[in-house]
């Protein structure tokens, strides 16, 4: 995890996208993992890395929903 991630960080919520065959996992301190699933339709993900990690916001994330597997709606606080 990046340096910004402290011991108070934790995975808040994860969502599965059938369209991308990936799980999106969002951490409290704003990190987002995209993790390709290889147990289903593995050919679709054979050229992808094991995960993608991004810092999507520099504020804390709270309650969240993923709309249509594309748009994240989340509460956030500083």
């Amino acid at each position, binding site marked *: *995890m990046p340096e910004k*991630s*402290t*011991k*108070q*960080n*934790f*995975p*808040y*919520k*994860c*969502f*599965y996208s059938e369209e991308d065959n990936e*799980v999106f*996992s969002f*951490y*409290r301190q704003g990190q987002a*993992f995209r*993790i390709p*699933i*290889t*147990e*289903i339709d593995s050919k679709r993900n054979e050229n992808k890395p094991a*995960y993608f990690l991004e810092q999507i916001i520099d504020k804390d994330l709270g309650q969240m929903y993923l709309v249509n597997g594309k748009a994240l709606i989340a509460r956030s606080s500083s």
Partner: protein
Amino acid sequence: MDDEEHQLEPNIKKFKQFEELFKYLTRSKNVITQYPIVTCMITYNSKSAVTVTKKDDREYYVKMYDLGTYKQSFEEKIGGTPTSYIKLKEVEQNAAGDGFAIAYFDDGNFRIRTFGESTRSDADIAAEELDVNKELGLDNHTMPIDNFPDPFITCVFVSDELLFANLYHTPTRTHHSFVYNIKTRKVSSH
């Protein structure tokens, strides 16, 4: 609490002259839970409401209530021993709404429990529960945040058989993720 006296009704008076149109669109009934609700969800098949309730830091319950009869149809206890320290927030469900999973934390130990719509014995639960620390070779030094219910582990169904889970091991500040096959009880992609 008197169930009839405290019956909640939808506030349809705000619709003024259209009140009659909305009068019979909703049904409501108070269902008193034994302990405070942490989270509540409705299954995708619209048959049940599933609650996570908390007695204290050592004991949580997952219960299901039939949305037709409002009667409790399922109950399982989480923790409840003198050494338990439980963090549990949400129940995940499969696409059909008839298979469920919880990922929870018990005093440094991460666990995954999967279940259906039938209440099981403690022995059956213990036999079927996944000990994540043992499976991934992790110590039990993770410290959660006292006032937060978050267990530092979350999961989601990717199919009826496969459950994705990820956790944060705080002593090493490491993210772990894996896929758990509910039928074969095998872990992969760690």
